[in-house]
């Protein structure tokens, strides 16, 4: 594993992503998702909304990093709120 040059923050990041995916799989098995229409312009399943939430979060972090000098934790908090909003009302 040495060649992959792991660091603690990136390891935590990937573990969180893996846990989210595992949880979503179990959730899907327990109660299969039905596409529904929220504020997004098309019908989405839970998995779609997670993808939209994660992709959007990546761009929120990049925009925060490129456009502001504030601490990156602000972007992380904003991303979590955005992800939760998309999952619930998207």
């Amino acid at each position, binding site marked *: 594993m*040495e*060649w*992959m*040059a*792991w*660091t603690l*923050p*990136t390891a935590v*990041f*990937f573990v969180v992503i893996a846990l989210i995916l595992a949880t979503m799989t179990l959730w899907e*098995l327990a109660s299969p998702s039905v*596409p*529904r*229409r929220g504020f997004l312009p*098309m*019908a989405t399943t839970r998995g779609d909304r997670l*993808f*939209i939430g994660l*992709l959007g979060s*990546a*761009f929120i972090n*990049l925009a925060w*990093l*490129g456009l502001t000098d504030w601490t*990156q934790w602000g972007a992380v908090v904003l991303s979590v709120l955005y992800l939760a909003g998309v999952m619930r009302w998207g």
Partner: protein
Amino acid sequence: MKKIPNNRAWFLVLPVFVTVAFSAIIPLMTVVNYSVQDIFGPYNRVFVGTEFFEMVLQDRDLHEALQRQLLFSFWVLLIEVPLGIAIALALPVRGWLASLCLVLIALPLLIPWNVVGTIWQIFARPDIGLAGVAVNRLGIHYNYTAEPFDAWLTVLVMDVWHWTPLVALLCYAGLRAIPDAFYQAARIDGASAWAVFRYIQLPKLRGVLMIAVLLRFMDSFMIYTEPFVLTGGGPGNSTTFLSQFLTTLAVGRFDLGPAAAFSIIYFLIILLFCWIFYTVIENLGRAPR
């Protein structure tokens, strides 16, 4: 009939999952790890956090390369898609002539990308190239090695020559799949050629057109070999596209950290466009729910 829930078929996906993990997911995770560290050697690395991302995001050269790349992809789609449709419409429908035309049209697709670059490098040369000399003889000053506009035009024309056949072949296949009954109905109604195109052929081509747009966008957004061989990114930086910028960073300067940070941003942009196109394909023609 009662449906029996059985998810064991998912195990059949396992080989693909293992292959993708080995060839894509693990390398991508390594790139993420590299992007937050300054790597001096295999056992000598320093954690730098988001510093490289910040550096890359504020890099003026990168912004310019991104603008060039978007502009290039925009022109590629704007020219190749209508031209591909027009060629597909003009091709013979059946007989030996149809087969001959299809083979001739498909020829540019069979040529390796670096060879395409070399062909055009010689073809467009203002001193010995057939096209370059011909254009200059017409009284139009043309020199792709010195003039940024000429270089741009040459890269664009080369891409159109190389990839319009793909769009044409896809559209041709799409057109052949339209049942004759539609055309018979149009004849009975006395529809004009334009009406047939607008209300029968174009809607029926929607599926293949979206695939063509998707493929052409992705390929043009990741273009590397042809402009690298043709112009080497010059004159100046005028034809340096994103992938060439990345290669210079990673292989030329061996700045693995910034190159990894840039790769992730590049990947996210492509992922975003892929998702937009995929969603559009999925939702086209579907009634709003």
